[in-house]
């Protein structure tokens, strides 16, 4: 017996839960978290408005601004659309494989996120020295960011209730119709993921610097670099934030209302009615381009790199620092993302969506600006207390990567329904027991993706790290940067390799989890 329900936000069924225990703390908690995440914007606005109006005009009204605008917007659109397509394809291909194969291949197509974008650029540049400009920037960013779509989409596919597909198939629905049904399930994940990709492209710096492609963000860094001018940089950052508000505004109508399928439970197997050859081929090519090229560049640098003038450094201390900072941020982000994601659950109205989308804006603020905002805030309000402590660095990571965790958790939340919780309560479960035993298990895939994704992203963060890292310690990314900027590529390579290997840990764990999950979910609910 299957049940197919079309639910819309603000539907009638929401009234009972509104009175429930959780609704009292959920909204205030989510709003408080969102305000915390958005606090760097305050610094940005204060700084930008401290520039005189004529100075601001001098910075913004140049023909360069028009070019930057065309470059930036063009690239954002091209990359986020391409990454959405590639990411969805990867998720669908993965879903078509047997769980055992998917377990081996998933890390290969998620790991590109663990490779710093500047290393991806560097890898391609080493292979093709003439590579530069729009096409190169587009290629590099798509290959570096498609897992942001692919991972949540795959999580959504695995958590999807396939009974509706069975019904559709038994009723003779065409392949295309079934495809539409599948896409309806992963749409929230795909649209949310491509919004993240758009914001990542808006904030990217290192990759474009290597490829010689100018965007607003490279111009922001130029302001810092040559003019030591934080105010001008913040003024330009405001433009980037405005662009990201635009991106968020475009995403909003695309992601809802949604079609949700709920029935007797997921199928044990994915859609393997079709040939797996295409899936293997697609995944193979994607992994070769996304992972093979940067890894090849690392290997080349290690083997053929010149003997350089810097003494080599140990990988182990930075490895430990990177791992603990990134793990801390992953945990904080995931915990903080839960209330915000739950607020977006169907039936909770518009507020959740608005709170959620606003937190996305922080992605578009360059890491350096966020870090300087933390610096400014600690000296202004705390007399420098806690400055350059591990806590503050983890807090900065948590702010910068909050949207990554949120989009992952949200993908799972979108598939959970209050109805089950209500059902459990009508059967006598307490509100907390109903949440713990009914809703939480449905969120586990999203929680695990969030932990992994934030961990991977924090591992490669550089600009905020350089400002906020405790004096005397170093991370893999800061050590890589030290050697790389001094042209000691051979010595930089081991740190890049360690970053990729460390990033492989949660990725492999995650794929093992997805491998197990389908056969067990039924027992939990």
């Amino acid at each position: 017996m299957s049940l197919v329900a079309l639910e819309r936000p603000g539907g009638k069924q929401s009234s009972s839960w509104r009175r429930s225990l959780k609704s009292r703390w959920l909204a205030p908690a989510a709003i408080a978290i969102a305000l915390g995440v958005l606090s760097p914007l305050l610094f940005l606005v204060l700084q930008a408005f401290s520039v005189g109006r004529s100075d601001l005009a001098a910075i913004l009204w140049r023909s360069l601004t028009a070019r930057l605008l065309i470059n930036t917007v063009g690239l954002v659109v091209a990359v986020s659309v391409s990454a959405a397509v590639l990411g969805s394809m990867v998720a669908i291909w993965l879903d078509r494989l047997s769980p055992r194969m998917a377990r081996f291949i998933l890390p290969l197509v998620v790991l590109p996120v663990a490779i710093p974008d500047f290393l991806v650029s560097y890898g391609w540049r080493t292979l093709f020295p003439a590579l530069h400009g729009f096409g190169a920037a587009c290629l590099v960013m798509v290959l570096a960011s498609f897992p942001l779509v692919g991972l949540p989409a795959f999580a959504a596919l695995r958590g999807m209730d396939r009974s509706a597909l069975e019904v559709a198939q038994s009723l003779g629905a065409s392949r295309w119709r079934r495809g539409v049904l599948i896409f309806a399930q992963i749409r929230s994940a795909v649209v949310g993921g491509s919004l993240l990709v758009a914001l990542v492209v808006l904030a990217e710096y290192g990759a474009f610097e290597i490829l010689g492609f100018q965007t607003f963000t490279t111009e922001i860094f130029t302001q810092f670099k040559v003019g030591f001018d934080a105010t001008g940089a913040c003024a330009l950052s405001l433009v980037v934030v405005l662009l990201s508000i635009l991106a968020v505004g475009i995403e909003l109508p695309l992601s809802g209302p949604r079609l949700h399928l709920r029935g007797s439970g997921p199928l044990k197997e994915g859609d393997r009615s079709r040939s797996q050859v295409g899936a293997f081929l697609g995944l193979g090519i994607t992994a070769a381009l996304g992972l093979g090229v940067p890894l090849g560049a690392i290997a080349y640098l290690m083997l053929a790199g010149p003997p350089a003038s810097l003494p080599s450094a140990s990988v182990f201390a930075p490895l430990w620092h990177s791992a603990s900072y990134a793990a801390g941020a992953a945990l904080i982000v995931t915990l903080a993302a839960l209330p915000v994601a739950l607020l977006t659950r169907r039936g909770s109205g518009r507020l959740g969506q608005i709170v959620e989308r606003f937190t996305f804006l922080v992605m578009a603020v360059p890491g350096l600006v966020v870090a300087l905002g933390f610096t400014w805030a600690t000296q202004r309000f705390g007399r420098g207390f806690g400055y350059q402590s591990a806590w503050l660095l983890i807090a900065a990571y948590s702010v910068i990567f909050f949207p990554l965790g949120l989009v992952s958790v949200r993908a799972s939340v979108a598939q959970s329904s209050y109805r089950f919780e209500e059902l459990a309560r009508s059967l006598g479960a307490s509100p907390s027991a109903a949440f713990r035993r009914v809703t939480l298990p449905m969120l586990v895939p999203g929680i695990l993706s969030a932990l992994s994704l934030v961990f991977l992203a924090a591992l490669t963060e550089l600009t905020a790290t350089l400002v906020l890292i405790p004096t005397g310690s170093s991370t893999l990314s800061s050590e890589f940067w030290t050697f790389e900027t001094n042209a000691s590529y051979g010595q930089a390579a081991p740190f890049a390799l360690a970053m990729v290997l460390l990033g492989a840990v949660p990725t492999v764990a995650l794929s093992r989890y997805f491998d197990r999950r389908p056969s067990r979910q039924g027992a939990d609910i």
Partner: protein
Amino acid sequence: MRKCFVSLLISGSALGLLSGCAKTSPSASLTVYSGQHPQLMAKLVAAFEAKTAIPVALRSASEQVLVSQVLAEADHSPADVVVTENAPAMNALAEHHLLAPLPAEQLARVVKEARGPSRQWLGVSRRVNVLVYDARRLQPSQLPSSIEDLAEPRFKGLLGLAPGESDFSPVVAAYEHVHGQAATLTWLTAMKANAAGHLLPDNEALLSQIALGQLGLATMDQYYWYRFHHDTAHARVKMAAFAPGGTGNVIGVSAAGITRQAPHAKAARAFLDFLSSAEGQRIVANSGAFEYPTSPSAPTPKGLPPISQYGPSSVSPAVMGSGRSALNLLQAVQLL
């Protein structure tokens, strides 16, 4: 099994969080923010620690990050000493009154062009801006004799520029000082046309593109070429000086200063004393960093010609200001 895995992952993250935070920064008696190449800085710090037994916490980042950081930290900056790769970064801090004046006897130890305009910094090392070229594409007789010549149309498609490199803005500032604003704009515009398609992020990239045969020539501080040559020994990448006394033979100074609110002011003064001392300057000369000491009595680094042989330009780092006017010019011609 699944619950076990989930709780393992979460407790692992929690453990990481706790252990990451348990480790606080060591209780150093002197904090140095350094934008100078670590090759040189690590040697100086190690020798200072050995001599004075004052433990130093060295924080390395690019100078633009450090300067923005000190500006944001203001009165609560943990930095005692700031060392930058170029003078404009130091001038920017001085403009914001974030540096303390240095004693006259310290400044007197270094050559005149290595003293800050308002006595707030002193030079640790210096180098000269030169020409680097591909010996397979250009004969010595075809080379420009001055930096002004780089604007000539014959270098179209050959010239590469790194307009965002922090060594380039002193060259622009020096050019403006000699020729005035209008002429500088014309010169930059012509160079931009010559370097179309060859605008690169930094000097390291310029050198490797020359080695790959993608570029004919570029201008940068001489020590980049020495380091590149030392590391890779590319025979086709050669170095040449502009004619003596020209505008392009700009002396770049790596500078050190003490912050206004230095928590360890005494140790900071001792560190600057050490940097400008005969011993510190000898370390600069022998560091293998291919930079020249700033003390007139220090030896010339092994393998380098005396700095006077380049016929350095007379433009002092003081006129370079904070790089603001160079940025305006570079932005006006849309190189940045």
